[in-house]
């Protein structure tokens, strides 16, 4: 089948997700990317793979680009020769490709022709000609650690000076480096240097059995463990032709919405705190703790890590769980409504929130922003309604969007999404009660060598993507994980421009992006 009038023949990939794959040459890839851009589609992810030694006559490398189009997820693969592997620079069409292209070179040694050529995940801690994701590299070697001299972009001018922040930050957060160029209090430019928590996740996947690596996927970004585990399992189930029982899918949705609520509660508290209302932090953290405790009691883990497994879920709800969840939903809803009123009417808070850290819709679109940050800037992307997999096809999720793109919009959106997730949870509970089956797991059949599957799930922060290729005898040949943070980080550089330095923590928190999820 063909899309967007392009000369590219796609085939439907197996599995529940509407996903399609095509092999392309350079011209076709560039043309397709341009067509996606023109028709309002979006760039989702880019990664590379080492295709050498697959069989004796074929070889080289490949770059894979995932696009979101009206029909679903369109994956385009461009094969490359083993000597001098290069591909056309896509960052001119989609700026979000920039850091991913640099990542691709750091890990695999395949280069985009043009664009930013500075390293991204590689700091000074392994040699420039060491490419850990190549098949003839085992990835075990350790090199001496050095401090890196990174070529930041300098802002010149009268009274301009720089503030370097990080990698270790002042709060309890993940490491990253921010280089502010400022005049007085005003931020002229922010440049990020990320990659500090790169711990070789993609190489590690290749050492784990396919049937067990959902645990690693669930630790790409701990706050999104459910989303990543589901995406991984969806990919694994797609390539192994496994359909989990309906009860398992309803339970997965329950977990995903619980993860959304837990994170939103925490963020709403932290956002109040960053605008000097510590009352908000205490109240919301209390609610979050209640929420986590019930998750721990019902699913055996406060963040529900390892609750989703290939083929279904690790356990069913214990007796009496439905009543407990329903009761908690009511209690949380009542309290969050009170707190929303307090936030809405707090002049000091609103003064800090409104017009701060603005990401306008046109820019959000140009930068391929999705998820929560996107919806706060008019980007109405939500996989739960666009490409709903079971049970979201029966749930009719009402997504919230805003146009202002400021901190206030991202706060309001979180409130609305908490209420919506509570509503969905009640529907899910009813379905679980009606569904009398006790089956919550179907064994994952052995995956054929070379089988490929995709998983794409709307986590609390945005979409997460897992691309998985099986190797021989239950192994993994390649697994790429993509968190929407990777695309949203550059937007933060824009959103802080013109704001004052002391508002940066608030703006940063309003996005609350994952470092680990982008560093891998």
């Amino acid at each position, binding site marked *: 089948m063909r899309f967007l009038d392009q000369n590219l023949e796609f085939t439907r990939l197996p599995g529940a997700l509407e996903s399609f794959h095509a092999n392309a040459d350079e011209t076709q890839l560039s043309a397709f990317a341009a067509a996606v851009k023109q028709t309002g589609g979006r760039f989702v992810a880019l990664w590379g793979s080492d295709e050498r030694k697959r069989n004796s006559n074929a070889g080289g490398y490949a770059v894979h680009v995932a696009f979101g189009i009206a029909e679903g997820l369109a994956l385009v693969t461009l094969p490359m020769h083993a000597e001098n592997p290069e591909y056309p620079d896509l960052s001119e069409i989609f700026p979000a490709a920039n850091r991913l292209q640099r990542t691709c070179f750091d890990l695999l040694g395949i280069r985009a022709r043009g664009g930013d050529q500075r390293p991204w995940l590689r*700091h000074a*801690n*392994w040699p420039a000609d*060491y490419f*850990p994701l190549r098949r003839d590299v085992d*990835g*075990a*070697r*350790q*090199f001496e*650690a*050095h*401090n890196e001299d990174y070529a930041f972009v300098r802002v010149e001018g009268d009274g301009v000076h720089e503030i370097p922040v990080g*990698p*270790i930050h*002042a*709060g*309890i*957060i*993940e*490491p990253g480096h921010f280089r502010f160029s400022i005049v007085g209090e005003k931020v002229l430019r922010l440049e990020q240097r990320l*990659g*500090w*928590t*790169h*711990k*070789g*996740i993609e*190489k*590690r996947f290749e*050492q784990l059995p396919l049937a067990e690596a959902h*645990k*690693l996927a669930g*630790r*790409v*970004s*701990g*706050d999104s*463990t459910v989303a990543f585990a589901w995406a991984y399992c969806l990919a694994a189930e797609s390539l192994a032709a496994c359909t989990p029982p309906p009860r398992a899918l309803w339970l997965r949705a329950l977990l995903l919405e619980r993860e959304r609520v837990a994170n939103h509660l*925490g963020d709403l508290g932290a956002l109040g705190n960053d605008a000097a209302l510590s*009352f908000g*932090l*205490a*109240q919301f*953290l*209390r609610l*979050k*703790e209640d929420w*986590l405790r019930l998750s721990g009691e019902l699913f055996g883990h*406060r*963040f529900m*890590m390892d609750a989703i497994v290939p083929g279904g879920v690790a356990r069913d709800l214990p007796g009496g769980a439905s009543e407990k969840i329903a009761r908690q939903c009511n209690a949380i809803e009542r309290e969050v409504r*009170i*707190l929303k*009123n*307090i936030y809405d009417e*707090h002049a000091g808070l609103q003064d800090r929130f409104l017009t701060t850290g603005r990401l306008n819709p046109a820019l959000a679109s140009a930068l391929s922003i999705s998820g929560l940050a996107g919806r706060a800037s008019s980007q109405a992307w939500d996989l739960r309604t666009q490409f709903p997999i079971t049970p979201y096809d029966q749930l009719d999720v009402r997504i919230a969007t805003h146009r202002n793109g400021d901190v206030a919009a991202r706060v309001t959106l979180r409130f609305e999404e908490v209420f919506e997730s509570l509503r969905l949870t009640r529907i899910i509970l009813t379905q679980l009660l009606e569904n009398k089956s006790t089956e919550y797991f179907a064994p994952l059949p052995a995956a054929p060598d070379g089988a490929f599957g995709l998983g794409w799930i709307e986590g609390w922060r945005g979409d997460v993507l897992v691309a998985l290729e099986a190797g021989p005898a239950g192994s993994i040949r390649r697994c790429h994980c993509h968190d929407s943070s990777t695309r949203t980080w550059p937007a933060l550089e824009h959103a802080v421009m013109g704001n004052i330095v002391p508002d940066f923590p608030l703006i940063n928190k309003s996005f609350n992006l*994952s470092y*680990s999820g982008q*560093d891998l």
Partner: protein
Amino acid sequence: MYQLLKQILVTGIKTEAPPVADDALRVTTQRLEQAMLKTLGRALVIRHIDAGSCNGCELEIHALGNPYYNLEALGIRFAASPRHADLLLVTGPVASNMVVALQRAYEATPAPKLVVAVGDCGCNTGNCAGNSGGIFGESYASRGKVANVIPVDVAVPGCPPTPLALMQGILTAISGK
């Protein structure tokens, strides 16, 4: 304002009793003298360092500040700089990219300094098959457990450790033997 005050009153005090120290968590024997521990026990300052975690451990460290655990009520608080800290709370397998930063933070912390390694990644215990670096292991990008890079006094297993386990680890680090 009325609503806000009412909410505070209605909520009441939620703080629960803290756990007691557990010597099983020690990696080395207590190095500090009783008199020193007594002082620290009343006003301990912690600097948290994420050396490469998945951010799961950070979620539980955050929870230490919620009204249930209320760490500050024990005289324990988090500081923004290692120069102000008595104890480093380190999470994650140590990413190669974080080695220099972690060493510098350790050097910047005034002696006597305590280090608590957090999570299965940071220590090599727990359900991650005793792997240094937990599920991430050791590789070109990961140095594994925290003790591979800086000296560690107490290690708290768990993925992530619960807030109670974290509190217990911190209290163990400042308890005498």
